[in-house]
């Protein structure tokens, strides 16, 4: 077995276009009966490294992450996370990952502590271990002062902190971030960037999905560029920079995606 924590091989995902979906999509609906969201995609993520999955809106990034998190089933291909196959051991996969979406996904009527405890309980965490992790995370993220207040009254920054605590309370080997800084202010975004670095330094495998090139340059060790469901580039940051024909990451990305179009 290789040292890869996430192995994605020839991954494909097609969605059936039902009448209802076609009606909802209107003029933007595809002509065929299916929509290929992810098309023959392969990549690996290693422990202690950040893999940046980049792509414009609708590239298939979120679908790929949902497939890795076993929320969706692949049409073809395989995904192995920490030795567990998503097809045969989906619970084993979900046990190993923490998944953070751009949408904070919190329950407004719960307190920060209740929210985090809920996810710890879903991971069947030992109460002592939970309390130890909770104290550490709440202190690191600065949640302690509003730990017993209901989430409904939190600012977006406070919400994102609770969301992070929820994601990593069970100390997962793999952390998946799906556009985690979308809609956040500079300070909160910087906090998340620091957290991703910390996770990497602790030897975690980080899969980071974004379309903000500044964050890619700052954080990623490996890069995958996804467009219209296909992987257009997959390699290390150095390999990406070595084949760049434009001055900035952003220009290179636009050039690459534009050529593909």
């Amino acid at each position, binding site marked *: 077995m290789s040292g890869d924590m996430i192995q994605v091989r020839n991954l494909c995902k097609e*969605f059936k276009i039902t009448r209802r979906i076609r009606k909802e999509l209107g003029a933007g609906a595809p002509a065929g009966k299916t929509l290929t969201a992810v098309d023959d995609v392969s990549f690996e993520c290693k422990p202690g490294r950040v893999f940046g999955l980049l792509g414009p809106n609708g590239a298939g990034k979120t679908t790929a992450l949902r497939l890795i998190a076993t*929320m969706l089933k692949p049409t073809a291909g395989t995904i192995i996370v920490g030795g567990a196959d998503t097809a045969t051991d989906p619970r084993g996969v979900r046990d190993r990952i923490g998944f953070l*979406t751009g949408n904070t996904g919190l329950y407004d*009527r*719960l307190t920060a502590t209740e929210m985090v405890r809920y996810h710890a*309980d*879903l*991971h*069947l965490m030992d109460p002592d271990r939970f309390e130890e992790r909770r104290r550490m995370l709440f202190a690191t993220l600065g949640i302690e002062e509003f730990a017993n207040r*209901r989430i409904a009254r939190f600012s977006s920054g406070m919400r994102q902190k609770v969301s992070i605590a929820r994601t990593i309370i069970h100390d997962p080997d793999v952390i998946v971030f799906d556009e985690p800084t979308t809609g956040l202010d500079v300070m909160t975004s910087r906090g998340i960037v620091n957290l991703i670095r910390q996770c990497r330094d602790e030897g975690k495998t980080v899969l980071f999905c974004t379309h903000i090139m500044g964050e890619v340059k700052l954080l990623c060790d490996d890069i995958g560029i996804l467009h219209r469901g296909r992987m257009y580039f997959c390699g290390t940051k150095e390999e990406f920079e070595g084949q760049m024909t434009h001055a900035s990451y952003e220009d290179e990305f636009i050039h690459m995606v534009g050529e593909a179009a």
Partner: protein
Amino acid sequence: MNRTITIAKKEFTDVLRDKRTILMMIVMPLLAIPLLMTIVIKVVQRQERKADEEQIDLAVVGAGYAPRFFETLQADSQFVIREDVREADFESLIREDSLDAGIVIPPDFQDRIGADEQASIALYYRSSSSFKVAEQRLRGAVDSYDEEIVDGRIRRLSLDPNLFDAIAIEARDISTMQEVLGKTVGGFLPYMFVIFMFTGAMYAGIDLSAGEKERGTLETLLSSPASRLEIVLGKFVVVATIGIASALISMLGLYLGVRGAIGEIPPEALDVVWDILSLKVVVMIATLLLPLAAFFSAMILALAIQAKSFKEAQSILTPFSIVIILPVAFGLLPGIELNAQTAMIPILNVSLATKEVIAGTINPVHLAISYVSLFALAAASLWFCVVWFNREETLFRN
């Protein structure tokens, strides 16, 4: 199982902090029946008082042809007699509400009565107006005068009064008051219980499915180690419990309503009402409502998870609420009884069985068939719900 309990505990905490759920689960069921009882009692009392106090403008033409009868009418304080109106004006005056009714006594009235013949009186009234009560009173006055005349004739001719009553019915009603109340009020109660159970479960069910989608929390829940089955079961338990709780709270509302109306209910009926609200009856009704709550909860979750938002889920479930009310309403129709066939029809069987339980006339075989039918439906709807929660198109419509 641990994760199902975790989900259920969290959902309980979450929904019980939702004002909307509290309103639909506790406040509405608790207050609706006492409020309804108070309104009905007050309206009936008001109508009775109004009917007692109401005076009727009665025009009489030909009063001189039946002086004895006319005296009877004049002696009744409910009638304001007018002799200044012509028969030709009766119709127009009654139509414009200047007159309630008019009677015309023909010139040969007294002669025909004297000759032991049948005399007639013409009565003008408007059945579409509120004169219905007045008509009954006027008929009452005529009947009592008629009886007086007939009695006089029987005495004068030395006839046996039984000559005109060939058959006397000696009615012996073997129904207990509990049975009578069960068949009348008993039909109305399941209607209330089912409605409150559905609405209570509906708001919680939407919040835990479409609401979860709308808030973006479903995705994080799906990325946890909990399986889809555990997620569905955790939510299902909470929604079903809230549905049952709403129905039981409406029973408590009924109890409070009866306590509040003790002075208005006849003592003999009150004893029966307390028997109806006994622990045994309440437990039997609750066991009937249990599988129904399971069916409602599973259907609500399965349908609401299709929606992208709370609002969309409401619009999906509103027609469904009409579909479930229809069988309950059907159970209110006269002649529809619980038998082997109707016991197999879900919802209708709850409505009919509740009536029988309250009346104390429930057939155990029919009750067993009802349970089997309801549990089968609940199991099927739960399976259906799990299938929907496993469909990617349902969970990720975007």
